[in-house]
């Protein structure tokens, strides 16, 4: 073991990293977004196009697979960094654009600004993402390097001062690290917002010489993908945060609990762990000190409830993921009964920044009670879908309309769903609520792990409540009665309402049941499961009423309450598009040449409505599902 101080050892790593990365930058480089979102949009094919074009032009350029920069609406995306030019981001890449970029920019001198999205760093020629209108709202701390550094190369992370916080911490007592995190007021980003420093301190004080640090990357919210994106784009940031935690509480072993549905994240984290061990920032005698800590990946097997910390522990121990009563909290009695700190991916990601730049800096961002930033995956009916990071305290309106660019197709905003199956639906009137743990809670939603779904006039609130409740109902582990049976009853009632069979009495029952399940369940899965129902009942009661009293779905979304109808006055007899689009051959041509729908055969798939040319727009949805009487012609 070397006698050098941890900082000396770090500076050596840093120098090597800098040299290696600088050497890489001498060649033109294409940083291609290949996180799952990019791959889904075809990034791997784009990679082939680049390689082919580079070869056919006889160029010497490197194609690097990076993570996600958060502008998922423009995937596949790449940053082209050519010496002598500012690094530029290009979106919506296809074979033609790749050909053009290689020929004109890489082989030539023309950066094709007309196709550019934004520059990476400030320069005199082209605006950056920060110059976008949304730039003033965004503040990227833990997403800062995502998509810009090579997640498969530790040098790329170290060069950006990665692991410097670790060296700094190791140069001092563990208590200093803990004090800094405590002073920063960092709150857990896994949903509940528990103060991280306090959790660590509890573990430290619990005593014993075996302790564990676990990163919760189970991310079960079916509309969220921030944690995955961070692991795929910047895995070392999370690892460094975990090592810092281990140092602060005196742990020697840890796990990253990653969903098995995230194979890319698992692979990148495993590689990152390997490289971290090689560099001596993980494993035994970290940075030349006597501190040892090692990490391994545990692949979760796909159960939402395993995101709950005690269920997660059961699952690592090889049992069914069933939560248990707390206290004792895992910080005192966790994995194999030993003190265990469990934090979310994002929570750990903030830690290196806090150690590097200090608690006061962290507290200067966000609000006093919820310092720092909030990370969301913004999806649904919003123009700029993707990952966003804004300071806590930003309002929902700013987030949706400024950062997200508002709703597409000129549709009317109806609601925003925050916090996934445990969260709630907030209406227009709640849009000025600032985003922080406490304000959202007051409004009836929760911060959750960061899924944010925007809904417009075409989304039915009863059906959305039904969707989330069905999810939690299926994922209930079945241990406690309220959660197992209560959610089932609630779901039955909701199902009836969406089919037009509800009644006022059962609506009251639904509300009572929701409150009982909330109060009577053992873990937060059950306790929060009624939230989507309670918030929609609170803010959108008239929609429930319309279903019950009129058999009408105002959004025309509940399929049992709508029918598809071709408006004869708008139908052009000459066009056959709808007939061809129907998967069940329900559309036929009447004797008079007009098209009509055989309601018996119609599966309400919406194909014909989409297929009907906009100049006619003849297919409409009717709710309640009653045909206009005189037009109820039989098929001849």
């Amino acid at each position, binding site marked *: 073991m070397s006698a050098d101080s941890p900082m000396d050892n770090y500076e050596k790593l840093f120098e090597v990293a800098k040299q290696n990365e600088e050497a890489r930058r001498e060649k033109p480089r294409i940083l291609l977004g290949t*996180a*799952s*979102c990019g*791959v*889904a*949009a075809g990034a791997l094919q784009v990679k082939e196009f680049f390689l082919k074009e580079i070869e056919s032009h006889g160029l010497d350029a490197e194609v690097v697979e990076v993570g996600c920069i958060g502008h*998922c*609406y423009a*995937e596949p995306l790449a940053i082209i960094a050519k010496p002598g030019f500012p690094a530029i981001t290009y979106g919506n890449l296809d074979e033609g654009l790749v050909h053009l970029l290689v020929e004109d920019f890489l082989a030539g001198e023309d950066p094709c600004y007309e196709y550019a999205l934004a520059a990476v760093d400030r320069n005199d020629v082209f605006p950056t993402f920060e110059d976008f209108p949304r730039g003033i709202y965004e503040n990227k701390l833990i997403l800062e390097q995502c998509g810009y550094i090579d997640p498969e190369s530790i040098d790329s992370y170290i060069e950006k001062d990665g692991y410097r916080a670790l060296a700094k911490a190791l140069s001092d007592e563990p208590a200093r690290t803990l004090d800094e995190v405590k002073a920063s007021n960092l709150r857990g980003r896994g949903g509940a917002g528990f103060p991280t420093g306090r959790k660590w301190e509890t573990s430290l004080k619990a005593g014993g010489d075996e302790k564990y640090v676990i990163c919760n990357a189970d991310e*079960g*919210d*079916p*509309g*969220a*993908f921030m944690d*995955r*994106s961070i692991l795929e784009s910047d895995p070392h940031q999370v690892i460094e945060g975990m090592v810092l935690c281990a140092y602060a509480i005196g742990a020697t072993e840890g796990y990253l609990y990653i969903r*098995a*549905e995230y194979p890319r994240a698992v692979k990148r984290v495993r590689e990152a762990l390997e490289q971290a061990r090689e560099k001596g920032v993980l494993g035994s005698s970290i940075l030349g000190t006597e501190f040892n800590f090692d990490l391994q990946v*545990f*692949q*979760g*097997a*796909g*159960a939402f409830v395993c995101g709950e910390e005690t269920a997660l522990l059961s*699952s*690592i*121990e*090889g*049992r*069914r*993921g069933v939560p248990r009563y707390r206290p004792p909290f895992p910080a005192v009695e966790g994995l194999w009964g030993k003190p265990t700190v469990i934090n979310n991916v994002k929570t750990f990601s903030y830690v290196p920044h806090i150690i590097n730049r200090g608690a006061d800096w962290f507290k200067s961002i966000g609000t006093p009670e919820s310092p720092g930033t909030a990370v969301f*995956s913004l*999806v*649904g*009916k919003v123009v700029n*879908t*993707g990952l966003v990071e804004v300071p806590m305290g930003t309002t929902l309106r700013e987030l949706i309309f400024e950062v997200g660019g508002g709703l597409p197709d000129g549709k009317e905003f109806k609601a925003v*769903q925050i916090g*996934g199956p445990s969260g709630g639906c907030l209406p227009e009137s709640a849009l000025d609520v600032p985003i922080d743990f406490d304000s959202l809670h007051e409004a009836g939603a929760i911060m959750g792990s960061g*899924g944010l*779904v925007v*809904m417009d006039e075409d*989304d039915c609130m009863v059906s*959305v409540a039904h*969707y989330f409740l069905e999810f939690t109902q299926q994922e209930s*582990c079945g241990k406690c009665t309220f959660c197992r049976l209560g959610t089932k009853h609630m779901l039955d009632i909701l199902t009836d309402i969406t089919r037009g069979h509800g009644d006022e009495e059962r609506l009251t029952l639904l509300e009572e049941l929701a409150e009982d399940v909330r109060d009577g369940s053992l873990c937060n899965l059950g306790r929060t499961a009624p939230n989507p129902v309670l918030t929609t009942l609170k803010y959108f009661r008239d929609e429930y009423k319309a279903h019950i009293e009129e058999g009408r779905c105002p959004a025309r979304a509940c399929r049992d309450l709508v029918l598809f109808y071709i408006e004869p006055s708008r139908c052009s007899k000459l066009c056959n598009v709808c007939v061809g*689009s129907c*998967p*069940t051959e329900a559309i036929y041509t009447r004797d008079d040449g007009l098209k009509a729908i055989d309601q018996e055969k119609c*599966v*309400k*798939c*919406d*194909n014909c409505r*989409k*297929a009907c040319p906009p100049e006619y727009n003849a297919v409409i949805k009717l709710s309640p599902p009653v045909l206009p009487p005189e037009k109820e012609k039989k098929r001849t």
Partner: protein
Amino acid sequence: MQLLEGERELILSTVEEVLQNSSRNREDLIPSLQRVQSKLGYLPALAMEKLAEGLDIPAVDIYGIATFYNQFRLNPPGKYQVKVCMGTACYMKGGEITLESFERRMEIEEGETSPDRLYSLERVACVGCCTLAPVVVVNDDHIEGYVTPTRVDGIMLEFEEADQKEEETEKETEEETKKTAAEGGKNK
């Protein structure tokens, strides 16, 4: 589901191999099941029984684990596997209609495999490309966006064509080998 020819042997040898690399502790159970599934594509009842013997855990416990976690499948995957995204964004854009269309075309229900093992159909939660909703994952690695019922017909047609082509090449190679074998015989 009926075991195919030679499948029994494959199951036994796979379990044997997984057991050899296992510490045989309880904590190794879920990773062991994951390994078996990644080899065989599913968890056949026979494999669970043999694992139970090897790890000295009651078979019912293993079954309990396998049914508790969504990742484990008790049906073999089809040659063409379709997973329909039922994440929030996809649900709102009609994922359910897509799922139903596949059920209609494949003549199986969600969670099932067709008896000839050609098709299997599942639902998954958000695969992270909500912009392309509704989304379908084909054979684990190929993602299709904007899958309307008409596109479902297209995808099914592609499967049928691919399968037919494969059968033809198989037949050709078979005939080829027969021919060469016959010619080889003549030359002797």
